[in-house]
């Protein structure tokens, strides 16, 4: 059940038992919490997907490539909280991710 910030649903309109449909987190742009941002270097990336599996916010964007399979295509800055786990986990020899201070 999507909850509009301004229109409050009534008891008759709400799903019973506080059931919330999956995927509502998408509407929350937690990226605004960020103080540091990860920067991804496409040329260095080997698509090992270590960052993707490590990201607690599913903020590593991927796509299907015919030859390479699943590849990294960028970072979802709407939801990335800037925790830096991706940059920490990216293999040091690859170093395709580094953190920069968020510009205010």
């Amino acid at each position, binding site marked *: 059940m999507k909850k509009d910030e301004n229109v409050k649903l009534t*008891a008759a309109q*709400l799903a*019973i*038992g*506080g*059931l*919330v*449909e*999956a995927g*509502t987190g998408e509407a929350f742009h937690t990226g605004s919490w960020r103080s540091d941002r990860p920067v991804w270097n496409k040329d260095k990336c080997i698509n090992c997907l270590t960052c993707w599996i490590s990201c607690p916010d599913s903020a590593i964007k991927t796509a299907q490539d015919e030859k390479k399979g699943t590849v990294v295509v960028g970072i979802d800055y709407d939801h990335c909280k800037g925790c830096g786990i991706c940059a920490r986990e990216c293999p040091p020899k690859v170093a395709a991710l580094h953190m920069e201070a968020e510009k205010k």
Partner: protein
Amino acid sequence: MIKPVYSKGKLAAKTGNEVMAEAMRQIEPDVVAAYPITPATEIVQIFSQFVADGKVKTEFVAVESEHSAMSATLAASAAGARAMTGTSSQGLCLMWEMLNIAAGLRLPVVMAEVNRAISAPLNIHGDQSDAMGARDTGWIQIYSENSQEAYDNMIQAVKIAEKAKLPAMVTTDGFIISHCMEVVETYPDEDVKKFIGEYKPERYLLDTKRPFTMGSIELQDYYFEHRWQLAQAMRDAKKIAVDVAADFAKTFGRQYDLYEKYKLDDAEIAIVVIGSTAGTAKVVVDELREKGVKAGLLKVRVFRPFPAQDIAKDLAKVKALAVLDRADSCSGTFAPLYSDIASALFANGITSAKVVNYVYGLGGREIAPNHIAEVYDTLGKIAAGTQKPSTDVNYINVRIK
């Protein structure tokens, strides 16, 4: 003795616990998670034997506490299973946190609950303090007068809970029903299974095609609406319980209502009571009726939801009324059943009856026909105006001074 009413019914001597386990075998839930506690131990012990013997396909989860038993049961229910458990007294107390969550998440868990005193002092015998402590947790509560009712209530509870989307507990009085052998009429497995039907939840967590979140936080803006839904579901459950009872009567022939009236229609003095003591009180009512005393009885079967309006209507003509509670409230004032009966009468404008409260039978203390006869004797005096009704709790068969 129970008279058979169903053409395909079978009479057998069984204890309350045996017959509740038998009902569970016939219901054959997907999951049972339980922890043993006197006097309810046998229910899940017998049931676990059914599992071990391959008589049911139920997944039995032996847990390490009642808190875990209720957690696992409600989680199984959330996953989409028909889930049941059983407990008593301290076990129900330990479940308390999860009882509220089962109700709040609107999960139709069904529990066999054997009423037992709560500690301290430690006591294993029958009184209703345990279930009365859980009366406002959002659980449907169905109390049984005897083993037959316990069996019939278990079967009905599954259907009521699933329709109301509320958890339900069926209770028996510890030892008095749980361990006493009575003749009970049971119905064939296939007929019970047909009556309860297959459980098809609209939403369940193992439905990977329609994922959802359950139990998320709701603050000032949404919590209240969901608690209103819960309270309203309990109000709506009255009709559901009545409908299921009608369906049950049509199928098996045994009549039930939210409460039972025994020689109440023309009664001038009456007792309201819950559970096995109703059986004792009926004997006293019969004796008094033979002497020409217009005595009656109202036995509450479904205590949650509380059928306040109907009860008030049926007690409107009574001159003096005693509400017998097998639980004290330690509130400084009246016990639970009295409070609900008194507010039901008051809210419905019935102020003619003088209503007194008695607490009896705590920790399995004997309640004999002579004790109940004394209450009726007092009611007779109150009705005649020769004795003033007590304005505080009275106690039966306890040494005070």
